């Protein structure tokens, strides 16, 4: 028996092969590396929470991050500009009547007292020279923040596209995930 002939039969990868394999792995990793991107889900329609979402969005955009905001369920009220009752089902009409008609009539999450709390907060913000929610939304648009309205919850609640502000995108879970999977930070607000 000659055992010394066995190692010779195994083909050794050349250095070139190794480098090529490493390059491929590096390219695959780079493809999956997070970008300078922040993704926010705005689920809440509470003035205080939405305000926090827009402070983060405008701040991140100013810092040079790409920002995506995905508005769903109660968060859709933030994007409303009008209310249209025709063409809605009974429940949808009831929901439309009981929900805020635009960002200006959002309640606060605590101590709302039928809107008095929200009015108080807005007055306090004005006194302290904090930018209003509407001002921040305008700013977010100027800074190129991507705003996506969730198609499923919009349809479910019977909110018509014409009731929402102009210049929005619509999309579903994949539209959000496509951005959030590439983000360093994703928040659910």
């Amino acid at each position, binding site marked *: 028996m000659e055992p010394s002939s066995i190692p010779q039969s195994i083909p050794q990868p050349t250095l070139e092969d190794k480098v090529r394999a490493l390059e491929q792995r590096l390219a695959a990793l780079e493809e999956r590396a997070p970008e*300078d991107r922040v993704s926010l889900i705005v689920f809440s329609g509470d003035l205080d929470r939405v305000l926090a979402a827009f*402070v983060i969005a*405008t*701040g991140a*955009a*100013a*810092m*040079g*991050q790409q920002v995506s905001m995905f508005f769903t369920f109660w968060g859709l009220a933030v994007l409303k500009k009008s209310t249209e009752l025709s063409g809605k089902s009974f429940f949808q009409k009831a929901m439309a009547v009981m929900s805020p008609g635009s960002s200006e009539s959002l309640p606060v999450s605590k101590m709302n007292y039928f809107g008095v709390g929200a009015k108080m907060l807005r007055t306090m913000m004005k006194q*302290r*020279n*904090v*930018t209003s929610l509407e001002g921040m939304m305008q*700013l977010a648009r100027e*800074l190129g923040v991507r705003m996506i309205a969730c198609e499923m919850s919009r349809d479910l609640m019977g909110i018509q596209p014409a009731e929402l502000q102009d210049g929005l995108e619509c999309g579903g879970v994949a539209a959000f995930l496509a951005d959030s999977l590439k983000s360093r930070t994703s928040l659910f607000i």
Partner: protein
Amino acid sequence: MSQIFDRVLDARGLNCPMPLVSARKEIGNLEPGQILKVLSTDRGSVADFQGWAKVAKNVELVGQETETMDGASVYVHFVKRAS
């Protein structure tokens, strides 16, 4: 020695995130290498500008100081447009 600068942004009276957002807008009007001086009364802006410079690739924080103007603290930031 006081820091040299090319442009001044008066963000006094503005609150978070406005000092940062307005500085971001203003720095776009500068040439690469030029320095923007930002005046702010927002105490949080000190950490905010440090964070901005850490994250953004084209911005460099070359100095920060606190001055007292009309009895109030003013936070001064010197931001350089790197590229």
